[in-house]
């Protein structure tokens, strides 16, 4: 168990990802080593002398390191259909901004509904494919938005009451406000905790669209943009660029590069749309941008690797040397 003081260390988060990468490689190597051991064992049972059995098993397997490299590439690299499906929702949101549909309720609700349906069908039909999580981020955003608005309005009402002002609210409004706000947050936090245990990259693919949409709405709400046209153009560029980032991350083979690229996308996106923003808002938005980074730091402490002790097994495996 790591010390509490190290929880704030980004270096530890990075180290954990390095370890995950190493463990993933070892998992592949161990699987191949097991195969050679199984074949060798079968030959020994047939009366072949142990050294010769192992040599025959290694020859029958072929170039194990080339096979391991192929497997690693397959495990980490998304196919081109995966890449296209991952980038599609962000591109579609960029098109909503370009076509001036982003303030029309039917388009917003329709987009969220389609994202939800595609996410659910995607999980059912294709399992945990990277592109499914890219859609899930957009599907969950309405839940986050409703939760934030409910908590925000309830907090505002509470503040009015506490500061002596009058707040015309019946008890049901209070219950609904708190209930919706807390329920939404619980759903999202529980899902993120589960996803981060499975795969950080999938968790980031879900978090980032929600964070970018939050930033875009916050910037619009606080009057960062001087004209509607400016808001459209900047957000279209933001989500278009994010679509490229997601596509590149899904196609990359190295986990750390994937994570680095995805983690950098939010601050880069902020830079893209922060021209003319006042310093107070910059601080608020920067704090919002830190959410994915905080998740990265916290995730290693909720992740439980259920793999066996790879070091010990590899030491005693029949891995060809």
């Amino acid at each position, binding site marked *: 168990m790591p010390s509490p003081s190290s929880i704030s260390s980004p270096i530890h988060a990075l180290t954990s990802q390095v370890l995950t990468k190493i463990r993933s490689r070892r998992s592949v190597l161990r699987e191949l080593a*097991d195969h050679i051991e199984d*074949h060798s064992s079968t030959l020994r049972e047939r009366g072949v002398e142990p050294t010769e059995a192992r040599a025959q098993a290694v020859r029958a397997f*072929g170039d194990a390191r080339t096979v391991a490299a192929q*497997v690693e590439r397959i495990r980490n690299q998304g196919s081109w259909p995966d890449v296209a499906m991952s980038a599609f929702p962000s591109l579609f949101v960029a098109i909503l901004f370009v076509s001036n549909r982003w303030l029309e309720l039917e388009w917003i609700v329709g987009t969220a509904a389609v994202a939800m349906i595609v996410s659910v069908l995607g999980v059912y*039909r294709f399992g*945990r494919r990277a592109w499914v999580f890219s859609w899930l981020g957009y599907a969950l955003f309405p839940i986050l938005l409703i939760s934030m608005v409910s908590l925000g309005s309830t907090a505002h009402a509470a503040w009015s009451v506490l500061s002596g002002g009058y707040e015309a609210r019946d008890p049901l409004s209070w219950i609904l406000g708190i209930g919706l706000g807390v329920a939404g947050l619980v759903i999202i936090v529980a899902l993120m905790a589960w996803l981060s245990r499975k795969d950080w990259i999938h968790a980031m693919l879900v978090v980032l669209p929600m964070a970018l949409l939050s930033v875009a709405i916050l910037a619009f709400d606080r009057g960062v943009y001087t004209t509607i046209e400016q808001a459209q153009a900047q957000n279209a560029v933001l989500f278009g660029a994010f679509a490229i980032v997601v596509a590149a991350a899904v196609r990359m083979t190295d986990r750390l590069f994937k994570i680095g690229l995805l983690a950098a996308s939010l601050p880069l996106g902020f830079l893209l749309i922060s021209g003319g923003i006042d310093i107070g808002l910059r601080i608020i938005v920067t704090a919002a941008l830190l959410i994915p980074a905080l998740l990265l730091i916290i995730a290693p402490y909720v992740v439980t690797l259920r793999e066996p002790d790879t070091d010990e097994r590899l030491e005693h495996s029949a891995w060809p040397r």
Partner: protein
Amino acid sequence: MSERELLKGSTDSLFLALLSERPMYGYEILREVERRSDGYFSMKEGTLYPALHRLERDGLIEGLWRTSPGGQYRRYYAISNHGLQRLEQRRVEWLNFSRAVNMVITGSTP
């Protein structure tokens, strides 16, 4: 078309068909393919794993480490719902294809 090329196009279906019966680990799959084909399908053993991991990446099978009946820890593969659907599709395609080829080559009628 050589036997090697024929095998290359059929490995996914062979693996899916075997895994639709029960979860198996890599070496077990290879031996089972050889046994059931009476040694006809014999591949370079290392080529099995890129194929299995590609099927897993595509959501057709799922890999999970677990203990075998013999007490060894092995990475087992089980077919997914999507894999079952793909297998059914491949079965129909194969039956149609083999029936058509058979009719042309042997002159038999359906």
